[in-house]
């Protein structure tokens, strides 16, 4: 039986990827950011997940305005790293898990989630920066990855409630897969940031930490937060946080199991324009 053993939450700021790729991790500006992931790298080296179900958003990379899927699940064997305009990041390509992904697709679509399945897709910093933060700079990523790209670019984006429900359906799907696999689910993006207009640079430390508290202890309430609250309190790009609710919805306690154990919590301002948040919950 496949099992979701833990969920990981992290910002996916592109500048973090650039700092890593350009060897700036020891600079004063970046040191505190990477220090927040030291525990996580040791932890995941011990955990050795077989598969990471990685929830992120595409930033006008694989999807243009021609086609905007609310939820796009990757069922491919292989994903190339995208050139976002700076050239592709010097990181390994990503290997998928087509069989588990197809199983999840079947289960989740039959549970009334209207997925788009994707067999060819380049992945951007939303997916690769979290891998870099957790695994450093290996020659190849040490596990398979199933990408789920969520539309948080063009409104309407899915509600937090819908995301939380999708997480529950993903959990059910994974646990009905009859191969022995250790699966982690990651929610990425956020926390507070705004990349546009006169309000660019907005950060809301209090709100972010209250939201983290709720995500840990009372995720059903966090899932009820309407879009406008994210925009008003956490900046226009803070809306990415709805993706964390997919990962949280896949934890055991939401389906009647025990509360997760908080293995790690980290918060730092700033990385570029963004408040970096990071959390590890174990089932």
């Amino acid at each position, binding site marked *: 039986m496949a099992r979701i053993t833990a969920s990981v939450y992290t910002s996916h700021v*592109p*500048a973090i990827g*650039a700092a890593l790729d350009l060897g700036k991790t020891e600079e004063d*500006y970046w040191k505190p950011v990477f220090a927040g992931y030291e525990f996580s790298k040791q932890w995941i080296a011990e955990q050795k997940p077989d598969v990471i179900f990685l929830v992120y958003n595409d*930033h*006008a*990379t694989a999807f*243009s*305005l*021609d086609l905007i899927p609310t939820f796009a699940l990757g069922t491919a064997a292989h994903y190339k790293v*995208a*050139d*976002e*305009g*700076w*050239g592709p990041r010097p990181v390994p390509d990503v290997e998928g898990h087509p069989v588990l992904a197809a199983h999840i697709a079947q289960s989740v679509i039959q549970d009334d989630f209207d997925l788009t399945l994707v067999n060819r897709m380049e992945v951007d910093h939303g997916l690769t920066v979290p891998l870099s933060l957790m695994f450093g700079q290996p020659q190849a990523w040490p596990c398979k990855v199933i990408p789920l790209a969520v539309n948080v*670019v*063009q*409104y*309407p984006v899915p509600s937090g409630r819908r995301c939380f429900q999708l997480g529950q359906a993903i959990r059910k799907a994974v646990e009905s897969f009859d191969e022995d696999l250790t699966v982690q689910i990651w929610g990425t993006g956020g926390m*507070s940031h*705004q*990349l*546009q*207009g*006169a*309000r*660019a*640079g*907005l*950060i*809301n*430390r209090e*709100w972010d930490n209250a939201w983290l508290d709720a995500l840990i202890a009372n995720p059903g309430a966090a899932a009820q937060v309407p*879009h*406008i609250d994210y*925009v*008003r*309190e956490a900046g*226009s*790009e803070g809306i990415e946080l709805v993706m964390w609710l997919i990962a949280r919805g896949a934890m055991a306690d939401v389906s009647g199991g025990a509360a997760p154990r908080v293995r790690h919590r980290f918060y730092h*301002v*700033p990385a*570029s*324009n963004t*408040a970096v948040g990071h959390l590890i919950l174990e089932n």
Partner: protein
Amino acid sequence: MPLEKPYQDVPGTIIFDADQSRLGYWLNQFCMSLMKAENRVRFKADERAYLDEWPMSEEQKQAVLARDLNWCMRTGGNIYFLAKIGATDGKSFQQMAGSMTGMSETEYRNMMISGGRSAEGNRYLGEQGDAQAHRQPQGSAAQKGAA
């Protein structure tokens, strides 16, 4: 109005909804084209000629040529698309975001290091925060304007 827009009372913020998307369709698709290295080269060689290959409005082209990201956004641009222009110019997301406030690069960077812009006074139109319309542009640009 067909679409409800509960997000129009947030200062200094444009939500990229279906109306904005329709308005900015070709501007954003032009931006996407800059993800190919050969297109970046062609764009840099003759920006105007490259822009003229796209059915964008003249205003959109002027906004791109001026690298005025606020202007680009008013004409339907989305920041994740516009970022491809910044990437072509070798600008970081921090430089791009800062450019929309009127602050200098150093001023914006220092604001972020000091914890970022506060939400206080910046939640609703008509409050007194630094993102409100009557307090633009920000930073040294404001002094220059006043001088």
